[in-house]
């Protein structure tokens, strides 16, 4: 269910140096934020899907996520459709302009719909590029990459541990939800939105307490293995930037460059 857990594989993306992957992700992310042309974003989206195919990551992981995102996107699009001023209107204002203050509201603009869709696609693409790094890179390798990029290994491990916590949390949440369902907590199965909110302490408190307990135990375990003892840490796995990595990096730069160019021209 999680888009973060390492998914073993042999693809060229798996084999890329983690530093290249991180940098590439940053470049792509920034580009996506800047680009506002719908077709260019669509190109990025398709490229992302292509990468997924190459990496061998299972598409069904996206499915679960999509369901959740779909409602968010609908909401976004609707908001934009209702409130973004534009030139082409699909529906005339429900409330006539003559009414003070709220006059003019209730119209659905075409520009709004398009913008809403753009925002949604942007978000979707961003979200889908991340697993290409997190799911194809082992935690240790990622930590090593961060260290080689200049981070102290303590911070690198903090980062990777934080990233790794998320799937654990997701798992725990499900377990806790099941546990509370078995105490007659009906809201998760058939409650209204508001009731669901009121029930959240039953979910959040065990999660947080569990996390704190786990963190404390992890701390003891890490100390027992001398974490933090030396200024620098050896890594038995080495990473090196090869020809393929450079090609990949250049390819990403070129792609984003072209995308940005088109964005400003169109």
């Amino acid at each position, binding site marked *: 269910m999680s888009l973060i857990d390492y998914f073993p594989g042999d693809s060229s993306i798996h084999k890329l140096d983690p530093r290249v992957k991180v940098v590439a992700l940053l470049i792509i992310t920034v580009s996506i934020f800047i680009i506002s042309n719908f077709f260019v974003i669509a190109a990025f989206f398709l490229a992302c899907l292509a990468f997924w195919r190459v990496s061998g990551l299972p598409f069904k992981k996206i499915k679960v996520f999509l369901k959740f995102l779909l409602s968010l996107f609908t909401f976004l699009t609707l908001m934009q459709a209702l409130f973004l001023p534009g030139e082409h209107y699909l529906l005339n204002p429900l409330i006539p302009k003559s009414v003070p203050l709220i006059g003019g509201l209730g119209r659905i603009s075409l520009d709004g719909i398009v913008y809403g869709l753009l925002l949604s696609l942007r978000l979707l693409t961003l979200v889908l590029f991340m697993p290409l790094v997190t799911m194809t890179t082992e935690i*240790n390798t990622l930590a090593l990459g961060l260290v080689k990029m200049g981070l102290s290994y303590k911070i690198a491990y903090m980062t990777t541990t934080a990233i790794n916590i998320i799937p654990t949390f997701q798992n725990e949440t499900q377990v806790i939800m099941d546990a509370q369902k078995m105490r007659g907590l009906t809201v998760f199965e058939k409650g209204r939105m508001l009731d669901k909110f009121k029930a959240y302490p039953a979910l959040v408190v065990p999660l947080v307490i569990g996390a704190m307990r786990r963190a404390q*135990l992890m701390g*003891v375990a890490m100390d027992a293995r*001398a974490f933090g003892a030396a200024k620098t840490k050896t890594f038995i796995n080495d990473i090196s930037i090869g020809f393929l990595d450079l090609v990949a990096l250049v390819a990403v730069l070129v792609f984003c460059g072209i995308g940005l160019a088109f964005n400003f021209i169109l």
Partner: protein
Amino acid sequence: MAEIIIKIENLSYRYPRTKKWVLKDINLEIKQGEFLAVMGENGAGKTTFCQCINGVIPHSQRGKMKGRVIVAGINTVESSVSRLAQQVGMVLEDPETQLFTTRVRDEVAFGPENLNMPVPEILERVSWALKDVRLEQHADRQPTALSGGQKQRLAIAAAIAMKPKILVLDEPTSQLDPVGTEEVFTVIKALKDEYGMTVIIATHKSEEIAKFADRILVLKEGQVQALASPQEIFSNTKLLKENWIRSPQVSELATYLAEQGCPLSSFPILPQEAIRLLTHWYEEAET
């Protein structure tokens, strides 16, 4: 005569911002190569005791510590946890929280990596540590894919990769099934036999303890209640009752028969000797 490897003098400890002393005035000496079991009800201070030996207390856990703990000649207060980690390996109860990496081999390498050892030496240590716990064929697997017993054996490998003289295990089998439990105890025994490793294990598993332990330390509310051989501990009904310790079933039987006025000729803690004694007890003619 084996030398003393751990010396504990007037050890008392309380957690930060609490008034209650979790350990009270503990004095004891542990010999090199000894297999010491730490028993007592939950809350007696077993975990705290274990953490005082590898330096987690007082370095990672603040709080107030009185007295001293000398491990392999090093005073735990004056030495860093990392230096102590090379003398004392630690295995915790929950396999999940003490495994941090995505590959068995990397997990074992973690400790030596932290000590900034050169790569060839680390690889060598990984190799024999995995061999010692019989996980060599799993070296490239993900730790999450292992069974409970395998995970704990991995934790042991990760601890011994630092080449400690002492191995401390805090309830290592409480989350495991019988198969896993047996795997873990077998490995621990092998380590003791082969390397003369000193083993300190906090556990409730009386029947395994009867097989392997040289001495049992019984703690209650932070104080030493007894420090004696399994024979002496498991035959001490009063002590067992007060500390909610279950003796091996054969010992329970021996106690029961004695209470009914028909004791065995000696007190068994192991099934084989019990069978022998019971057969003898049954067959001996009455005078």
